[in-house]
């Protein structure tokens, strides 16, 4: 289990405990920890170094408000920098051509063909008339794969099993598109390594010949340190317009997103979040930053809950979280459902505020017993309105659950933090880290 980034930052900030000003001296250890944490999240070593140096400069230059602790200030700076780096201008994909040509490129197995299917589905739903073109002449059954996907989404596929020349196929496809009033042509290509000169030239030639409006570089979110090399070589060759980050439905931190953005400065235009044709999303820099920082991603949590849990339940839960009406009954229900899933700690980590609380706990099914006992000992009124929990109520609950008031207090406090966090997630973007309550 990865120790999540926020808990690492917490640890780093611990070294700042009791200090009121950020100095070159007291910040060094923190900066090192942040760098280490970023690297653990797969951010490129060099880029993490540059990034933390920038953070350091900002932190040193900035005013230290007396009301804000150094740790909180650093968290805010880190988060803001990340959001800014990941964000920036995102132009929609260029569909001005007639037909518009979109060229898809990337390493083997990154998810190009799957994404191509999703993209044409998306375009079709926007009222376009897309054509999917099969230019992978190498991979066994590549053409069948894309045909199956085309059929699934109801979009025509242009392919030529007998022609082993991607360039010729693509040219034919564009003629075909013009003749048949397709207004967007999505060209799926074979996976290729950046060191494979022949294959890199092939895609370079495709670009020159097709003059695509849009070239998208598809990259697996689980990619490690190699992301910088590959992105750079593909960008040098193709000067691509945008990045597609795939397999974000996994539990990778996705630091590669930072590396790529930093090295080629191209926007991340789409994210892929599953194998099904629906699983396409636009990129949210703030979600990505909090994912990399391990600050919890309430949206992913809910989406994943929906995957596993009863859909109606999950929708209700989401609504309650939005309205900040999440109470102890919901918490209890959630625990029960989570327990069924096995991978408890992972999932819990997605709930803002919880990841930190459970980081040192070795969670098995019994781990929730104490928490459940406490909640079970509350009256339903108390569960729904935790604010009425006063000293004597807490004493009674502690007794009833065989715990201590300290434990009851701890749970109530964590629950409050969790709610606060949910509220901030809902109301503000980008600035929420500054308000994050840190235990110290």
């Amino acid at each position, binding site marked *: 289990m990865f120790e999540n980034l926020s808990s690492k930052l917490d640890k780093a900030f611990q070294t700042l405990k009791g200090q009121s000003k950020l100095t070159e001296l007291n910040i060094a250890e923190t900066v090192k920890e942040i760098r280490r944490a970023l690297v653990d999240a797969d951010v490129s070593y060099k880029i993490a170094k540059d990034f933390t140096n920038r953070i350091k400069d900002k932190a040193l230059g900035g005013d230290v408000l007396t009301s804000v602790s150094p740790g909180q200030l650093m968290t805010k700076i880190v988060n803001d920098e990340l959001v800014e780096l990941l964000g920036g201008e995102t132009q929609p994909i260029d569909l001005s051509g007639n037909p518009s040509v979109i060229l898809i490129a990337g390493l083997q197995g990154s998810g190009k063909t799957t994404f191509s299917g999703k993209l044409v589905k998306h375009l079709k739903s926007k009222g376009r008339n897309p054509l999917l073109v099969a230019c992978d002449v190498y991979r*066994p059954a590549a053409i069948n*794969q894309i045909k199956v996907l085309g059929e699934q989404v109801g979009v025509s596929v242009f392919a030529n099993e007998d022609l082993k020349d991607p360039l010729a196929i693509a040219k034919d496809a564009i003629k075909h598109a013009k003749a048949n009033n397709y207004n967007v042509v999505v060209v799926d290509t074979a996976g290729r390594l*950046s060191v494979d000169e022949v294959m890199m030239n092939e895609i370079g030639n495709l670009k020159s010949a097709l003059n695509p409006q849009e070239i998208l570089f598809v990259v697996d979110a*689980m*990619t*490690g340190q190699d992301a910088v*090399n590959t992105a750079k070589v593909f960008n040098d060759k193709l000067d691509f317009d945008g990045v597609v980050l795939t397999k974000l439905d*996994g539990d*990778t931190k996705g630091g590669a997103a930072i590396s790529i953005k930093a090295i080629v400065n191209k926007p991340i235009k789409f994210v892929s979040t599953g194998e099904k044709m629906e699983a396409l999303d636009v990129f949210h820099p703030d979600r990505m930053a909090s994912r990399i920082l391990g600050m919890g991603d309430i949206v992913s949590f809910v989406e994943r809950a929906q995957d596993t849990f009863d859909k109606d339940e999950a929708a209700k839960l989401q609504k309650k979280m939005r309205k900040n009406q999440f109470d102890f009954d919901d918490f209890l229900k959630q625990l029960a459902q989570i327990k069924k899933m*096995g991978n408890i700690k992972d999932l819990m980590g997605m709930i803002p505020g919880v990841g930190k609380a459970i980081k040192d706990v070795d969670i098995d099914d019994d781990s929730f017993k104490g928490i459940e006992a406490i909640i079970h000992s509350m009256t339903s009124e108390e569960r729904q309105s935790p604010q009425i929990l006063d000293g004597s109520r807490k004493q009674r609950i502690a007794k009833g659950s065989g715990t201590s008031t300290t434990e009851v207090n701890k749970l109530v406090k964590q629950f409050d933090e969790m709610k606060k966090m949910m509220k901030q997630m809902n109301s503000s973007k980008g600035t929420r880290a500054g308000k994050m309550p840190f235990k110290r």
Partner: protein
Amino acid sequence: MGLLDFFKKKPTTEQKEKLDEGLEKTRSSFINKISKVVVGKSTIDENFLDDLEEILISSDVGVDTTVKIIDRIEARVSKDKYLGETELNTMLKEEIIGLLSENESPIHNQETKPYVIMVVGVNGVGKTTTIGKLSHMFKQQGLKVVIGAADTFRAAAVDQIKIWGDRVGVEVVAKGMNTDPAAVAFEAVKYGSEVEADVVIIDTAGRLHNKVNLMNELSKIKRVMDKQVDGAPHEVLLVLDASTGQNAFEQAKQFTASTEVSALALTKLDGTAKGGVVIGISDQFNIPVKYIGVGEQMNDLQIFDGKNFVNSLFS
């Protein structure tokens, strides 16, 4: 020759050349950096270790393992501070090999026939391709191989493995798309026994390790085979993509939890990705790396040899 004896064979010169070739890109940058770090240093100082850290981290070795390697070097050097380039290089190699070979389990001969290998991993890492190459390898050893097409989910997955079967001349047991993968695995093992195959290899659909339902499905696929042949699958091969970063650790952990992974294959080492992730995983999970993939053709599979691997990095 005993079944799977060939595993023990050292790579032939030809294979070695191919490995060197495959790793050339990896090595050239790695070695350049190492030499840069090492040349002209007669003592281990902070800078040396910082540079070393950069090299290891940039190869996806991971922070924990890197720290471990550096600690070990530091511990060894603290006594006799003065070291030349050669000694440092050797020491570094030794430490990394140490981490790898600690887990290098011997590959047992299997009296069992058929020897069943189940191949698992996240999406797109190269499972199906590795099976194609593996089958070819086995076949070249004169073994009879049967493939089970138990990825019944991903578009054209069955077609893909069938094409590989044709290519390498191996029978593929398939029941079509969207059928029960456990049933396919069962059938394949059954058929393998009937035709007295030496090896049965089961392809499975790629799945992310955090999808509980899919991981449960995988456990089920694994379980049914035992009903047909005792102890099957005898090997669960987890395929890892060399370009994957630290998430590979979680993959190793979760796939081990649901299928008791017994060996690793590291693919796409012909690219620029360093594959250093193997060092950390091998160290942390005690699972040997058995194969490396160095290309998309049927001959592009090699038996992993820790010493060879590290030597190729540093030669």
